[in-house]
């Protein structure tokens, strides 16, 4: 599904990704761990098509070079990024945003756009699965949401848009214990043979709930170690010092 070869990314003269290789197949769960500033969010941004990066190397998504696709085209083709810091958009009703988003994606995929009633029914269902109070949906997008509420809202959007590749950037940070379980359940219930996940996290506790097939350690813009789920457990104990 995703094939990254020798990826390099530079922004504002800062060389961040320095030859990164990664392959993800449908149905797989990959975890990326690594010290602060190692380039994890940068990788997520480069994959989802954020402007401003000078990029070398190759990223293929289902055989197509990503460099040819705009941010929204990538989203429409099933790449989803749960932001480390979800944005607030004042004045924009959460429901309006979600509906606009879903219909943009549906339209691009050649599906019928949903009318308001159908949409509301759907979103209510998805929200209740995540224990999100309906009241949030009529508030301004992320405005005044607590850190954890914002993160849950990201997972709600993931479940709504049904992406093929979901990149979660520290979605577990800032979640309380119950919310962590809800988010993890949300991810697990969305796991399937077709869907893949790239989960960026600092903590093993998320990986206790969502069992990764691979754990990668990113350091200084490169993947320096790859292992199975046990690598996460080991890192939790020893830290990065003896591998970095």
């Amino acid at each position: 599904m995703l094939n990254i070869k020798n990826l390099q990314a530079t922004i504002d003269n800062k060389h961040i990704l320095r030859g990164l290789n990664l392959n993800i197949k449908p149905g797989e769960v990959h975890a990326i761990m690594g010290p602060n500033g190692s380039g994890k969010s940068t990788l997520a941004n480069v994959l989802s098509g954020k402007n401003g990066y000078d990029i070398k190397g190759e990223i293929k998504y289902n055989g197509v070079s990503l460099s040819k696709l705009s941010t929204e085209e990538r989203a429409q083709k099933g790449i989803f990024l749960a932001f480390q810091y979800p944005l607030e958009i004042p004045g924009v009703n959460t429901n309006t945003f979600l509906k606009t988003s879903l219909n943009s994606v549906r339209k691009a995929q050649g599906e019928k756009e949903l009318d308001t009633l159908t949409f509301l029914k759907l979103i209510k269902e998805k929200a209740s699965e995540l224990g999100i109070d309906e009241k949030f949906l009529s508030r301004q997008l992320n405005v005044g949401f607590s850190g954890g509420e914002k993160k849950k809202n990201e997972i709600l959007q993931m479940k709504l848009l049904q992406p093929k590749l979901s990149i979660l950037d520290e979605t577990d940070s800032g979640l309380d214990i119950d919310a962590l379980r809800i988010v993890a359940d949300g991810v697990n219930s969305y796991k399937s043979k077709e869907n893949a996940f790239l989960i960026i996290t600092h903590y093993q506790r998320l990986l206790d709930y969502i069992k990764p097939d691979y754990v990668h350690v990113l350091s200084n813009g490169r993947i320096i170690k790859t292992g199975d789920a046990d690598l996460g457990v080991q890192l939790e104990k020893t830290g990065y010092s003896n591998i970095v």
Partner: protein
Amino acid sequence: MKTEDLKNNKEYKYGFTTDVENIRSPKGLSEETIRFISNIKKEPKWMLDWRLKAYNRLKVLKEPDWQKPKYPKIDYQDLYYYSAPKSASDKPKSLDEIDPKILETYKKLGIPLVEQKRLNGIAVDAVFDSVSVATTFKDELTKKGIIFCSISEAIQKHPDLVKKYLGSVIPISDHYFATLNSAVFTDGSFVYIPPNTKCPMELSTYFRINASETGQFERTLIIADKGSYVSYLEGCTAPMRDENQLHAANVELVALDDAEIKYSTVQNWYPGDEKGVGGIYNFVTKRGACRGKNSKISWTQVETGSAITWKYPSCILQGDNSVGEFYSIAITNNFQKADTGTKMIHLGKNTKSKIISKGISAGNADNMYRGLVEIKNKAINSRNYTQCDSLLMGNKCGAHTTPYIKNNNATSTIEHEATTTKINEEQLYYCNQRGLDQEEAVSLIVNGFCKEVLQQLPMEFAVEAQKLVAISLEGSVG
């Protein structure tokens, strides 16, 4: 303009002209022109005298030049001050009698009168060029004693009301453009709501500049008698053309004791092309008097069109406990310029005013909020709250805020907040990541920015206004 030209000018959705033979006044501004207008409208002598008084006053007034957007000198002798569709000089009794071409024009504008009658319960006093050609729903209103007609008709049928209130809010000698309007105004709307009556529908007018070289001098007068309520909508679009056109309307509102007037505008006159050629000069005087105690006047405007927009819908808060509100969205793109805001003059005790202004600039445009809040010494315990937000798109546009504040008594408070922000790249990225393209994203964010104002509009207008906001900013980012 030929069809061929129109095809090349597809950017402006409403850019078309209707080919209707015109009756025109003599060219230029003169006593003869004024007599011609008054005569063709069969006006009584007092009205002609009123116009001439204004004209004489005009001779000693100077065109103001303190505004930010400058414009080439207007040759007032090169304009026509009256032009009417011929088919309307014999007033039609029903829609069937209206020139099919005019009806077609409305259809292009999305105002099918027949449909509107049936569907949305709006009484439409449609102004085609300078003369009202169709008025609907009159019967229903008449039953309640509500008068909704053209100002020309009101001069004939309700002279006492017109004499009493015309010029009572905007005096004849107020300022250059207001005085010019008083001398040569052609038509507009008149509304009178009798005591303790709630107008059962939104009243609305669609304006349209049609004939080439015709200045538009609309005159609107709305009176809400004691304990009454009315919501009035004004919307306009104009056809494509190259010459600049002057639009100097006067709108006067009077609210008596416990009365409320809500006046909403969506202004979408032709803004000129991407290079700044052509477009309407929209120099409008709008003023409301909260004359009675507990009265309220609320202005809401969405200004997206015109080459230059220059207007300050104002409230004079005379009655004790009266309330004035001003909600504004001004969008300028390409080479458009706006200098707009409001004046809130507090005279009565416990008077309150609220100003919410959202200015959006894109391209090479310039957007100025200019406002006056004046609390006079007798207006004890009065309050004003002002919030001015500016949103910039790109690096070549400008936003300016110039609030004038005069508080003459210690028991009153004036609060002013202002922000200027650039459209946020991270927000755009977030929207794009959710599948929205650049234009959808901009539209969403900007509509969010304007929300407090948009939600003041009546439903049927809000949707149109949201679309307009998006259309006006197309191509401004990315």
